[in-house]
């Protein structure tokens, strides 16, 4: 392609040179340039034809089924969905969209969380001061923190409702039992995420909420120094499971740091992995479970062990 074009330009030059109509400036023919310019403008009228566009969007976006399928399957984000879906699953009233909303909230929380991490130091004195700084100094800081907190509360709600929907539609049944278990683990991780987040502003509300929460850990049987058989196993306030959780006998700077790391790195990591498994199993266990055709009592097939 490249040498061909140069030949044409050389011809243009040699022909012009030969004709020597005297208008050449520095060896470039203005008419050629004008031609090229008009060609570019015309190309712009149909952007989707340009190389640039085509390099980005490999799939053409017309209304044909093939393009619609490819649109989903060839997109790294969208290929979470199958190409086609049960016609009735599109309606709101079946799935209530709770799983999707939870996932969306998870992303909102991750983004607002990362932004908050720019301003937050998990040390005893500085934590509270940073929250004050966020509230008063950082532009949109208050909004950011509120979004993060209310998003968290909303996510807990949507996760519960999602479980509720999955149960009521019996979607945990064969073959999706394992996926239900992953869901329960994700539920617990969400609660832990919110629980560790509660402590980070280092104010009285968070401090005492976490203290009450971790006091329960103190009473773990065998591992807690106040739980049954704990003392017998040599558990004291300084080596039991609560101490492991808090990194100290009371909720102070160590607890703050550990909560910070759990909240920002560890649990989101686990949650993300379990989500991946969760989404994978949804697709592999047959996609959205319904609304499936109803089975009658008499059609129950005998169990094969």
């Amino acid at each position, binding site marked *: 392609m490249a040498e061909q074009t140069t030949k044409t330009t050389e011809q243009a030059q040699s022909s012009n040179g030969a004709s020597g109509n005297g208008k050449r400036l520095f060896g470039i023919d203005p008419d050629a340039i004008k031609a090229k310019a008009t060609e570019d403008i015309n190309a712009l009228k149909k952007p989707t034809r340009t190389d640039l566009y085509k390099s980005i969007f490999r799939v053409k976006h017309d209304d044909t089924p093939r393009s619609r399928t490819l649109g*989903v399957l060839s997109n790294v984000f969208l290929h979470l969905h199958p190409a086609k879906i049960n016609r009735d699953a599109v309606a709101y009233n079946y799935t209530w969209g709770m799983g999707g909303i939870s996932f969306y909230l998870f992303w909102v929380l991750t983004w607002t969380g990362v932004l908050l991490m720019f301003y937050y130091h998990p040390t005893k004195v500085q934590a509270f001061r940073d929250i004050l700084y966020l509230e008063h100094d950082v532009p949109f800081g208050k909004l950011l923190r509120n*979004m993060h907190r209310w998003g968290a509360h909303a996510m*807990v709600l949507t996760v519960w409702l999602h479980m509720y929907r999955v149960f009521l539609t019996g979607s945990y049944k064969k073959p999706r039992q394992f996926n239900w278990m992953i869901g329960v683990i994700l539920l617990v991780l969400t609660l832990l995420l919110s629980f560790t987040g509660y402590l980070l502003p280092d104010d*009285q509300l968070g401090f005492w909420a976490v203290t009450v929460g971790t006091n329960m850990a103190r009473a773990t049987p065998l591992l807690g120094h106040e739980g049954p058989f704990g003392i017998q196993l040599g558990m004291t306030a300084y080596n039991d499971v609560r101490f492991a959780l808090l990194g100290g006998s009371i909720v102070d700077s160590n607890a703050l740091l550990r909560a910070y790391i759990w909240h920002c790195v560890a649990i989101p990591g686990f949650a993300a992995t379990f989500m991946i498994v969760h989404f994978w199993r949804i697709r592999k266990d047959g996609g959205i479970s319904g609304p499936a055709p*109803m089975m009658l009592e008499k059609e129950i097939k005998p169990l094969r062990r």
Partner: protein
Amino acid sequence: MDWHQLWTIISLPDNIPIVGLMFLIPFYTWYAFRQAFANDRLIDQLDADPEMAKTHHRKTQPYQKGWAREVHVWPYLLRIEFLSAIIVTAILMVWSITLDAPLEEPANPTLTMNPSKAPWYFLGLQEMLVYFDPWIAGVLMPTLIIIGLIAIPYIDTNPLGNGYYTYKQRRFAIWTFLFGFVILWCVMVVIGTLIRGPGWMWFWPGQTWDHNKLIFEVNRDLHEILGITDPILYGIFGFLVVGGFFLITAFGIHKLMTLTEFNRKILARMTLLQYLTMQVLLITMIGLPAKMAARLLFRIKYVWVTPWFNV
């Protein structure tokens, strides 16, 4: 009636999710059961007319011969996801602009907040603390809840209702779940937030949260009530009572399981292990309201007292 007190509790920014819960759970329960009853009606029809059963697409949603069974994800599914994303963001934005996340005084270990409450979603557990020893309410019960939840698919041998709302076909499962989730979990969260005031005392809505409130309640252990004083004796007595409770409840549940023909059929499909796990889970779940009743009605503190733990 202290309207101001009621308003302060409800309008507290951190209590919005719980007030939301009080509206969302009933709404979605109604929404689900509406579809369940619609499906049940269709099932009855199909049962009644086997011919129709053969040809019917077996869904309440309308379906014609020529319509596609499956529709493209793009645009039909993605547009509604896009719409829900926008709505959720809008709600979040408005909520964040109007209400501020709470920021109380800096943490002061020497000053205990009264009432000092766990985050709102754990208030159910904190409420259980009133009735059980911390190790049961704090560790045993939560673990059993999680294990119970995980175990549901493996012990629910009823193949029906897989992928559609139905009440008739899964009456037992739905009731147990509603009892566990809505009543024991959500209602207890609401109680922990709105009703439990300073000193974790019971304040009816509209009562002023008075730090100096003193209530007289003397809870005595069961064996004290019955006058058994010898530790070994009441150790065994306690074991017997709890054991007895287990047996009676197990018998009760079995009675329920074999109530209708359909239940018996499902029971038959269950292996012994599935049956035993279900029994243990259900018994401990019922153990909570039983203990609450014992405490609230009969002022019984502990039933089974041993030197290492109490139940």
